C-alpha cells in the first residue's frame, strides 16, 4: 500500500479520497482505535442512560406504588409537568438565580480583570489568591457561607451589627425574602474568579499599540474602554456568558447544602425539584421527563456555545 511507503498523510486528505479509503488504511484504523476506548466509556455511561431516561419518561415508574406497574403513558408525564404550577415556579427561580448571579459575575469579573491587567504592587499575589475561591470545592463554599450567614452565631450578623448597619440579627437563610439572594452571593464569590481569569486572558491578547494609537488620537480612558477593550473581549465574554448560563441552569449542590430548597420553597430550583421528584417521591418516570426538559434547555445553550466556538474570532 502506498501509505507505508510515503508515510501517513500529513494534512487531511481531500474528501473524495477519504471516502474511497474509508476503513482500509493503517492510519484510518489507528485513528479509530485511538478513539474507541474513550467512546466505549462515554457511550455506555452517557448515551445508554439517555436512551433509558427517554423510555422512563414515557412510562409511569412510581416506586412507591409498585402495584401500578410501569404502563406506557406517551407524553403524559410531560403534559402533567407543563400543567404543574410548582414546575413553573421552579423554572422562574432558576432563571432568577441565573440572571442575577451571571449579571453580577460578569460585571465584577470584567472589573477585577481590568484591575489585574494594571500594574500594582502585589499583583502576582492577588492573582494567586483569586484561585482560592475557584479551587474551593462547591460543597465547602456552601458550608462556609452557611456558617457565615448563621442566624445566631454567624459572622455576617455580628459584622453588620458591630458596624451599626442592622439592629437585630437576621435569619438570612431562613427568610424566604433573602435566602435566594444569599445563595447567589455565595455562588458569586466562588465563580467570579473563573470569569476574571477568562476575561484577563482575553484582555492580555489586546495589543498595547491600539491604546497608544487611541491616545495619540486624543481618546480618553473611558472612550478606550468602550471602543477598544469591550469590543475586543466581547467574543470571549459571550462564550463565558453561555458557559455560565449552562452551569447556573444546573445549579444544585449549593442549594442542597445551604437551604435544601427552602424556606417555603423559595430556593427550589429546577434541579432540586427534579432531585426530589426522583429520590424523595420516587416518581422516576416524571423525574426522567424533567431531566429531558432540563437537558433541552441546556442543549439549546450548548448549541449556541458550539456555534460560537467554531466562529472565527477576528481582531
Amino acid at each position: 500500500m502506498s501509505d507505508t511507503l510515503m508515510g501517513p498523510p500529513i494534512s487531511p486528505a481531500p474528501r473524495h479520497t477519504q471516502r474511497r479509503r474509508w476503513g482500509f488504511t493503517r492510519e484510518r484504523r489507528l485513528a479509530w482505535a485511538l478513539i474507541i476506548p474513550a467512546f466505549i466509556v462515554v457511550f455506555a455511561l452517557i448515551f445508554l442512560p439517555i436512551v433509558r431516561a427517554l423510555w422512563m419518561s414515557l412510562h409511569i415508574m412510581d416506586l412507591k406504588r409498585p402495584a401500578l406497574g410501569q404502563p406506557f403513558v406517551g407524553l403524559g408525564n410531560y403534559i402533567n409537568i407543563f400543567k404543574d404550577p410548582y414546575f413553573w415556579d421552579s423554572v422562574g427561580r432558576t432563571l432568577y438565580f441565573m440572571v442575577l448571579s451571571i449579571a453580577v459575575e460578569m460585571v465584577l469579573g470584567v472589573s477585577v480583570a481590568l484591575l489585574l491587567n494594571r500594574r500594582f504592587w502585589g499583583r502576582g499575589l492577588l492573582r494567586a489568591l483569586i484561585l482560592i475561591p475557584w479551587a474551593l470545592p462547591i460543597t465547602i463554599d456552601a458550608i462556609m457561607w452557611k456558617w457565615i450567614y448563621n442566624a445566631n452565631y454567624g459572622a455576617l450578623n455580628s459584622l453588620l451589627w458591630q458596624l451599626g448597619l442592622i439592629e437585630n440579627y437576621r435569619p438570612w437563610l431562613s427568610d424566604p425574602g433573602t435566602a435566594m439572594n444569599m445563595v447567589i452571593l455565595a455562588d458569586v464569590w466562588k465563580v467570579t474568579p473563573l470569569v476574571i481569569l477568562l476575561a484577563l486572558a482575553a484582555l492580555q491578547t489586546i495589543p498595547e499599540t491600539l491604546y497608544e494609537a487611541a491616545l495619540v488620537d486624543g481618546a480618553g480612558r473611558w472612550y478606550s474602554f468602550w471602543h477598544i477593550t469591550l469590543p475586543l473581549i466581547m467574543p470571549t465574554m459571550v462564550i463565558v456568558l453561555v458557559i455560565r448560563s449552562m452551569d447556573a441552569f444546573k445549579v444544585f449542590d449549593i442549594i442542597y447544602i445551604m437551604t435544601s430548597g427552602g424556606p417555603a420553597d423559595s430556593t427550589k430550583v429546577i434541579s432540586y425539584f427534579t432531585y426530589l421528584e426522583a429520590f424523595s417521591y420516587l416518581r422516576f418516570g416524571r423525574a426522567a421527563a424533567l431531566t429531558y426538559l432540563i437537558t433541552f434547555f441546556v442543549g439549546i445553550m450548548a448549541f449556541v456555545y458550539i456555534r460560537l466556538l467554531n466562529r472565527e474570532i477576528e481582531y
Partner: protein
Amino acid sequence: MRKPSLLAQVLTHLAALIVAIVVIAPPIWLFISSISTQNELLSVPIHWIPQNPTFERYGQVLFATGTDAAAVFRGSMINSFIVASAVTLICVTLGSLAAYSFARMGFAGHGPLINVILFSYMLPPIMLVVPLYTVLANWRMTDTLHALVIVYSALIMPFAVWIMRGFFQTIPRELEEAAMIDGATRLGALIRVVVPISLPGLVATSLLCFLMSWEEFLIALIFTSSPSAKTIPVAIAEFTGRHAIDYGMMATGGVIAAIPPVLIAIVFQRYLVSGLTSGAVKA
C-alpha cells in the same frame, strides 16, 4: 503607555486591597472558626481573634480512634483520593489517545464526533443520575467506589478529550513528521515525541480532572451511603445536615478537605490557568 497619576495608583492599590480582602476573608474565617474554642464560636457578638486558639479538632479529625464522625471523615478523604486518582488516570490516558486522533488524524466523522464529545461534557449530571440509579441499584452496584469511578470517568472523559485536543493542536506537526521520516510509526511518534512535549498539557488536564472528581457532589450523594464509599463532599454535607451541628468540626472538616485542591491550584497556577482558558474559549 502614559504613566498613571499618583491618584490612579493609590486607587488601584486600594481596589486591589479590597478585592484581596473579599477573596480571603471567608476562608480565613472558616479557619479561625476551626481553631476557636466552642465558647468563642457561640459568643455574641463575635470576638474576631480567638483568645485560646486550639488545634485539638484537627487532631481529632486526623488521628482520633473510636469517634465515629472522625473515622467516617478520614475514610471519605481516602475514598476521594482513590476515586479522583483512578478517574484522572483513566480519563487522561484514554482521553489523550482519542484527543490525539481528533487533533491530528482528521477524517470524515470526526467533526460530528467532537461535537458529541462537547455536548456530553455539557450534559446536566441529573440527566444521568436518574436513569443510572435505576440500573445500578438493580445490579447492586451502588454504594461502591467502582461505580463512582466508572460514572465519573464517563462524565469527565469528554472534558479531558476536549482540553488535550487543544494542546495537541498547538504542537507543530513538523516534529512528528521528522520522527516518522526517521522511521518511527505514528504511535511511536506519539509516545516518544508528542507526549513529552505536551507534558504541561497533560499535567493541566490531570489536575483539572482530579479537581473535578474531588468536588463532585450530586452523583456521590445519590450513589453512596455507607462510610466505605462516601466521598469528602458527601461527608461534608452531612456535617451540616445533622440536628446538633458541631460548627467547629464542620469548619475543621471544611479546611482539611479544601487543602488538597487549593494547594494544587496555587502550586500549579500557570498550568491550570492556561488549561482552563484554552479549554473554555477556543475551538
